[in-house]
């Protein structure tokens, strides 16, 4: 494996420009949102106060950004140094994912100018799940910037600062593992609060654990997907040997998840709801079918060394776990008495803009900073 290096290719490709157009469009809608209010761009209502800005941008977005958390757990807690080349790209995705999730919350907050109060201890409500998530994610965004700082400092040759930071960075790495453990499970607790508004197919006391497990699963899976995409896109060298090793323990994690997920519904006697042909039932089936398919692929050792199968399995995990989170937050949620929700076009464009911004930032950073492994014949 070669050391990470800037790609130093053309940044302003066709892909970059497409992302810029989407982000620009989202920017226009954002202006609209800040001048005329959330109701003017979004379909969110009193029944569904959380739309895709929360369900996708925050709940799925931060889970997709759990690559940094998952890899840090592997490298620093389980002391598996050989995975270190995967940490930097993972950390970078985490950085973007969490930063943009934080920005999305600001877009979603009706009175965003009050948000700073979260960090004033004399205003804290320590019994609130939402407070826990807000403080935790807010702090983690800062921690991620510190964790990623060495890469930036390298680029600008701030050697003295980098060396000084390296002496204390272990504190931030530790925090970087603690904080996601806390808030990723709390994302599940939030929907536990919804009580009977949540369909029995998702309502279980295991929600926090299931959210934590999906965060880890998506973390590892997105690291793989990302590696394969970079390989196709930026022609970076294959990381198959490392990815195959990660793939070895994913079935264990996924197996435990599926066991808890399906048994919690089954033991409550609600599994029949999955087969009643309703949207909720079908989404439950789709979500679990994707994860079971990934499990079936990865449980066979011969598939774990084939990049094609690995890509399929990791994509299925990302999609299935993301669907689990969207189902829990929107599709399985019924506030009752006729409320319905589907995101409006401006709402969707703003979310797409967030994704496009992430893509642009990714393309810019990998070309300028030493994140991805250098291609052998570049």
């Amino acid at each position, binding site marked *: 494996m070669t050391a990470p290096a800037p790609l130093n290719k053309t940044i302003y490709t066709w892909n970059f420009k497409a992302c810029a157009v989407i982000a620009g469009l989202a920017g226009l809608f954002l202006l609209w949102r800040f001048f005329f209010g959330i109701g003017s761009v979004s*379909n969110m*209502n*009193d*029944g*569904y106060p959380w739309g895709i800005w929360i369900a996708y941008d925050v709940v799925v977005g931060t889970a997709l950004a759990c690559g940094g958390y998952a890899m840090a757990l592997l490298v620093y807690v389980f002391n598996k140094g050989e995975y270190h080349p995967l940490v930097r790209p993972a950390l970078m995705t985490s950085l973007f994912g969490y930063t943009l999730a934080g920005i999305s919350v600001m877009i979603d907050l009706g009175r965003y100018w009050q948000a700073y109060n979260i960090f004033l201890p004399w205003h804290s409500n320590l019994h609130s799940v939402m407070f826990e998530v807000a403080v935790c994610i807010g702090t983690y965004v800062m921690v991620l910037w510190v964790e990623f700082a060495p890469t930036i400092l390298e680029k600008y040759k701030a050697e003295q600062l980098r060396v000084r930071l390296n002496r204390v960075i272990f504190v931030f790495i530790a925090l970087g593992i603690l904080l996601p453990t806390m808030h990723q499970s709390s994302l599940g607790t939030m929907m536990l609060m919804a009580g009977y508004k949540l369909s029995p197919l998702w309502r279980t006391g295991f929600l926090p654990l299931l959210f934590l497990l999906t965060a880890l699963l998506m973390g590892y899976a997105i690291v793989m997907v990302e590696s*394969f*995409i970079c*390989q*196709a896109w930026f022609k970076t060298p*294959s990381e*198959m040997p490392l990815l195959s090793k990660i793939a070895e323990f994913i079935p264990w994690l996924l197996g435990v998840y599926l066991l808890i997920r399906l048994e919690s519904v089954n033991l409550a006697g609600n599994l029949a709801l999955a087969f009643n042909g309703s949207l909720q039932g079908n989404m439950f089936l789709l979500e679990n079918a994707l994860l079971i398919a990934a499990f079936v692929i990865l449980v066979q050792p011969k598939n774990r*060394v*084939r*990049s*094609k199968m690995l*890509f*399929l399995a990791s*994509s299925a995990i990302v999609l299935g776990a993301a669907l689990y989170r969207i189902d829990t937050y929107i599709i399985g949620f019924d506030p009752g*008495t*006729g*409320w*319905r*929700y*589907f*995101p*409006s*076009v401006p*709402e*969707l*464009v703003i979310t*797409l803009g967030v994704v496009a911004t992430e893509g642009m930032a990714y393309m810019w950073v990998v070309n300028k900073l030493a994140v991805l492994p250098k291609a052998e014949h570049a």
Partner: protein
Amino acid sequence: MKERDFARVQEKLNGISRRDFMKFCTVMAASLGLPLADASRLAAAVTAPRRPPVIWIAGQACTGCTESLLRPSHPTLEHLILDLISLDYNETLNAGAGYQAEAAMQASIKENYGKFILVIEGAIPVKDGGVYCMIGGRPFADIVKETADKAAAVIAIGSCASWGGIPAAAPNPTGAMGAPEFLKGKTVVTIPGCPPNAYNFLSTVIHFLTFGKLPALDDKARPRFAYGRLIHENCERRPHFDAGRFAVKFGDEGHRKGYCLYKLGCKGPMTYANCPAILFNDVGSGAWPVGTGHPCFGCTESGVGFTIPLHTQASLKYITPAAGHPPITEQRGSGVSVGAAALVGAVAGAVVGGGAMVLKNLEKEDAAAPKKDEE
């Protein structure tokens, strides 16, 4: 017991004094273990006018009507035939048989000439001289004609006796007809139903006993109290009809949820009867055909029951299902728009497309290094 009541019967009791008679009743009550107050009830029962005799004859019938009569619990069968009426002849319930039974019937008719109630069960075949139903060697049609002339009132029980029912269904090979048609010019009360509800029969009889006349009848000679309303009007599934919720197939979701059976051919909208109001067999709610999930087939309605096929949709007399219904809860918030659906579709397409491109790239890699992978 009043002095004048006793005077009426004194002669029959061999001229004993009222005081002696009351003493006798008191002793009887004591020996039967009854409270002394019952002595006066015994006295009243003994001196009451004779219970009205009922002659029940059956032609082309399945005895379902008689079976139905056995079911009521208020009054019970024994109270009915021992205390309220004197059921002098009924082929199904008779203890005796053959000439003995026929003789008993003739004796009763002779004794109660012009006073008894004649109940006709089953259709009357008239084709070929009525040979298709013979009782005691005589055509049923002759027996009906002969007995009806001597009766105080004639009641046709069941759909067969009312208009011919099943025996008269096309092609009607025996020339069966109902009692009203057969006994033209005579008032024949009809209690149609297959089987009829025994309470409708009993109520008619008790009305006759209490007031000495028949209850008000409709144009088909059915008592209005029982056949005045369409089944559809009192049906417990009516709200489903009004809300447009129908079972369309036996066992479908709507059927299991107890929706309206109109689309399965329920004849409730064109059949007059009180089935949904008084139910059957005193076993509680739901004990009637529609309540059990089967469409009404119109057994109380001449021209509907045994005539219109079971699952043909009924013609609605005056109530039609509403074209639209206000929702129970207001829709709030907005659903999916065309633009949003297109956008979500486009994104999904882009993700799948991108995935396919990555997959293609990886396939090349897998193909390039198959041996290395197997190690």
